[in-house]
């Protein structure tokens, strides 16, 4: 595998982010006072329930939405609009249905000379394990394969930042686990700064260096949980489960076993 390491991953600083939706009196405060600093090369998982604003926050960093308050900077430079420096993966993989896999990847490389583009496409296809499917149309691919193409498309530009918006939400549980492994494998050779948004606690703990727990209405980060476990992580091991339990406890009341004493 020959993907070159990205130029040094940046620090992402979000300070006091606020975002409102709606107007004329009926407003929804999606985010308020959201602060987070993502270290270079860090994998941050953001977990929260539906409607807590986690996707909105990610889209602000991506440049697809604008924040009403606060600032987002990447290595000090403010985020103004979307760009190739931030690769984003959506939950609906958003492949263009009229292009083959190859051409979908080429579509992401319009600013790169043809020969270079061809080489990067070949590398990316090999990396995500889709050799032989270059000429397939998206409707011929399974959900997992389509998401792999989406991963490849995000990687061909070697972005310094990876923003993942519930990328595996539409997949079945087994494929999801496979894809998480793939993502981890690729990330460990790239080491870009990653922010993953998910509602899956297992996913958040398995992938992230840190888990940010978001609260609902207004959306802000309630708590950070360090996942100080070496990779590859054992999903069923005690340390993993104890981290998971901390996060689980933020969303649900954990039934404690009652112990009866007898004298």
């Amino acid at each position, binding site marked *: 595998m020959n993907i070159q390491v990205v130029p040094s991953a940046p620090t992402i600083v979000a300070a006091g982010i606020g975002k409102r939706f709606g107007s004329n009196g009926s407003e929804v405060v999606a985010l308020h006072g959201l602060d987070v600093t993502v270290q270079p090369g860090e994998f941050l998982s953001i977990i929260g329930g539906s409607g807590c604003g986690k996707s909105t926050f990610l889209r602000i960093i991506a440049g697809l939405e604008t924040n009403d308050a606060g600032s987002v900077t990447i290595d000090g430079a403010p985020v103004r609009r979307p760009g190739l420096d*931030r690769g984003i993966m959506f939950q609906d993989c958003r492949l263009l249905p*009229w292009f083959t896999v190859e051409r979908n990847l080429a579509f992401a490389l319009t*600013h790169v000379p043809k020969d270079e583009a061809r080489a990067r496409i070949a590398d990316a296809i090999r990396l995500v394990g889709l050799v032989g499917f270059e000429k397939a149309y998206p409707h011929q691919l399974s959900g997992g394969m389509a998401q792999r193409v989406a991963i490849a498309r995000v990687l061909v530009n070697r972005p310094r930042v990876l923003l993942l918006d519930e990328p595996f939400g539409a997949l079945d549980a087994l494929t999801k686990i496979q894809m998480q492994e793939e993502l981890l494998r690729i990330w460990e050779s790239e080491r870009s700064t990653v922010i993953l948004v998910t509602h899956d606690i297992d996913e958040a703990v398995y992938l992230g260096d840190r888990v940010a727990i978001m609260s609902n209405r207004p959306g802000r980060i309630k708590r950070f949980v360090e996942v100080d476990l070496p990779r590859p992580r054992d999903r069923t091991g005690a340390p993993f489960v104890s981290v998971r339990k901390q996060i689980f406890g933020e969303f649900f009341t954990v039934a404690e076993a009652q112990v009866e004493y007898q004298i």
Partner: protein
Amino acid sequence: MSIRTVHRIVVRGSRGAVLPLAVLSIWALATSHGWANREVLPTPVTVLRTIGNSLGDAWFWTSVGHSLARMSAGFLIASTTGLLLGVLLGASRWGARLGGPGFHAFRQVAPFAWIPLISAWFGTGESTKVVFIAVAAFPAMVINAIEGVQAVTRQHRELARVLEISRWRFITRVVVPGAMPQIFTGIHLTLVVSWLATVGAEYFLQIGPGVASILIEGRALVRMDLVLFGILVIGLVGFALNLTVRHLEALVLRWRPPSTQESR
């Protein structure tokens, strides 16, 4: 051709033939039992004889050729200008504001109402007919092109922004391909209207050789077999055009998932 393909064609062909055969039988019965006046409804055999005679007649084939040529010219003008205008009106807000009301007003006018004006401007030759066909068929293409272009989703728009796609590439590689299914509907409709307008123009303007002259002659000589033959020819040409577009569509739109493709 595999045995399965042959089988499929035979089965589909027979299914399609059931209704025409039923009509044919009723027709034959009606004429042989005298249920209808022979003047008004000729026997199938008479019509068959007419068909046989006409197919050997060179004049028939040149008429068909003329009609097709006329239709193609009108269709090409209508589809290309219609596509351009439709993309403009659909893709740009200013285009829609400036051109929209005018186009919609134009569209409300029944095509035949344009004939006096067109004949005054273009004379009594071929150009009048071609212009009329183009004018009649043009709105169908525009409307479908507008709808196709406006169907570009927010998701695709965001994708293009995130990948820093130039405006030109966005239109040619995202908007137009995405609009293709709807554009093909437009092509279909434009072709149908073009053929209709061709026959209409020939019939009402009554100049030059063409398919409608079979109808005109049949009516003048009170020969219903000619009239029926004319109808048959018009219908068959329409059917053949339809089939051609469907094949083309299947080729260009082969990226579509099978459930949305028409079964053939």
